[in-house]
């Protein structure tokens, strides 16, 4: 009886030590869930969710502080992905957070006065220019977050929707007309 007890205690101590060591040795830096959520988010860094960027929003979701339907650039599909990742129900967008067609910012270079305010606002450094020099958007880097639009003192930035071209054209989902049978 006593022997069995000792064996069990010794075993528990040994396994506890192994587990304790493993938790230190294989410690995961950061929050893996937040990172997984961040990978699903569209990275526009637009702040429409109310958090200063995609990562803070991801962290808030991971902590359970934020809803999953706050990211309009991600679209409904983004919500589906988040719902699947977190194992929760799909939630439609609220009234004031509706997705818009994808767009990139465009600076009217005739009007631009070179104030650099938009450069400071751009979360992904997609505007090139210098003080009192004309600014221009690097369209390939622009995420369409619209953060550069409000600071512009001369309203020379507009959002241009991305048009369908040969380079981004997609095959459509097959749709068939049903024949009427009287």
């Amino acid at each position, binding site marked *: 009886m006593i022997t069995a007890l000792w064996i069990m205690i010794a075993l528990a101590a040994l396994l506890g030590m192994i587990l304790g060591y493993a938790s230190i040795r294989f410690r995961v830096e950061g929050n893996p869930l937040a990172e997984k959520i*961040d990978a699903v*988010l*569209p*990275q*526009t*860094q637009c702040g429409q969710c109310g958090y200063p*960027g*995609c990562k803070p929003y991801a962290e808030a979701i991971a902590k359970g502080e934020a809803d999953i339907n706050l990211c309009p650039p991600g679209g409904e599909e983004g919500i589906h992905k988040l719902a699947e990742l977190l194992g929760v129900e799909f939630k439609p967008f609220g009234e004031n957070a509706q997705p818009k067609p994808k767009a990139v910012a465009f600076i009217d270079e005739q009007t631009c006065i070179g104030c650099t305010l938009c450069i400071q606002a751009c*979360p*992904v*450094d*997609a505007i090139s220019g210098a003080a009192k020099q004309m600014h221009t958007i690097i369209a390939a*880097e622009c*995420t369409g977050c619209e953060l550069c639009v409000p600071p512009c003192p001369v309203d020379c930035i507009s959002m241009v929707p991305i048009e*369908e*071209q*040969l380079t*981004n*054209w*997609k*095959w*459509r*989902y*097959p749709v*068939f007309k*049903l*024949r009427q049978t009287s």
Partner: protein
Amino acid sequence: MTRLHSFHGGIHPLTHKKESTQSPIISAPLPAQLIVPFRQHAGDAAKPVVQVGERVLKGQLIGEPVGMISSSIHAPTSGTITAIELQQIAHPSALPDLCATLVPDGLDEWGVRQPLNYRQLSSDELQKHLRRCGIVGLGGAAFPSDMKLSHPVVVDTLVINGAECEPYITCDDMLMRERAEGIVRGIEILRHALGTDSVLIGIEDNKPQAIAAMQRAVDDSSHPFKVVTVPTLYPGGSAKHLIKVLTGVEVPSGKLPTDVGVQCFNVATAYAAHRAVEHGEPLVSRVVTVTGNVEQPRNYEALIGTPFSDLVALSVAKPDTNRYIMGGPMMGVELPAVNVPLVKASNCVIAASDALFPPPPAPMPCIRCTRCAQVCPVELQPQDLFWFAQSHNFGKAQEFDLFDCIECGACAYVCPSSIPLVQYYRYAKSEIRARDLEKRAADLARERHEFRQFRIEREKQEKAERLAQKERAAAEAKAAAATVIATPVDPTADADDTQQMRIDAALARAKEQAAAATPKNTEALTPEQRAEIEAIEARRAHIHELAADAGADDEPPKHSQGN
């Protein structure tokens, strides 16, 4: 005799090749205008290098390649460029693309042609020449041929594709019958550039005349090429399948033929390479089959940029023709309009009518009969892929190797429920590609955003450091000053003192500067001016005195309401 191998599945649709092989290839007459798209090849579109209004010669470069995978575009005949603008092209989207409009002057005057001796050229030089001449795969994919010749691994077999497995198309058949010698010379150039020993020319057994012509040309040339007759089986003309049949080697999923030591070119590409190298002619024309619902189905040698409507008019479309298909009936795409131009990839145009190609019955649910899996040449599970594509389950579709699908349409051909399976696969593929691009863009945005935040943080730190350094310097200066005047420095002199000291110093500096910058205008005066100033001052003092006296005597006048 080469031992032949076989691939899984395949179908035997009616070939309909007899109609268009009754008469020889003829040159299509010069059209009233040519529309030459700048994107006729896989990869990046060429960049226009001519101006509107410029006169160009036949074979003159009008679009130069941009980027790695790209090719050159040339003027198909001599004439004037009248426009460089967006125009409708042969693409299922019906979206416009950048094209040059060329009005021929009727002279068909060649520019400079520089025939080369390929034996004296290295593979590298040949590749550059083919790129300059705009040679791309003429089998339909239009992949730049120079890229196919530059390969990092050793290629020991060159496969020449003369299978032409798709129904109705006969342009390669007729080319082999009539221009076998040129093709063989082109093959030798490609073989030289690749540095291979073994050359296999695969031709399906429904083209006996082409086989005989090619065999004759090979015998005459005394090159050790092998003309191999392969059984007619759709899609045996797919590069990977022809390689399997001829060599027994299967190109693994996601790999290129060069990874297994084989490279494959179409016969028409070999002929174009021959014209480019030995005649110095860039690719400005090709043989195209016009067939289907027309009075005279046949093959034309037509200039690139010829509107399809001109070709169809030559063959006289029957009145009930209601649509046109570019390519074959299995893999071809419907033309958005019949006046779109012929491009390098156009091997065939089929006039279609409801009588010739009856509209398919409405699709029925999949009954999972797996007939599609039996005929799939890539050994996929089309019924599962359909299921995943239909339910937008793209991850699963990718797991089931959707991207190995060659869109041959064999599955849809045998489907008893007449489900347009290929349309679902195309939809799923383009969605997956778009998502991949989006994902890449998101990753880039994340990286840039994180770097920006790092940069802002770093700048903040640097600023703080600079400030601290200045403060240290100021404190040291103060300490030094204190030691000079020998007053004991309070060791507890804190930040406030430093601040005050800096303010004082700044004020003193400002005063000094103001004094130094603007000397008063009352300094350095002449004696006359001085006298004048004194006189004025005296007068002013006198007036002041008078005013003071008057103020003492009576009150200053008041404004009264009555006045």
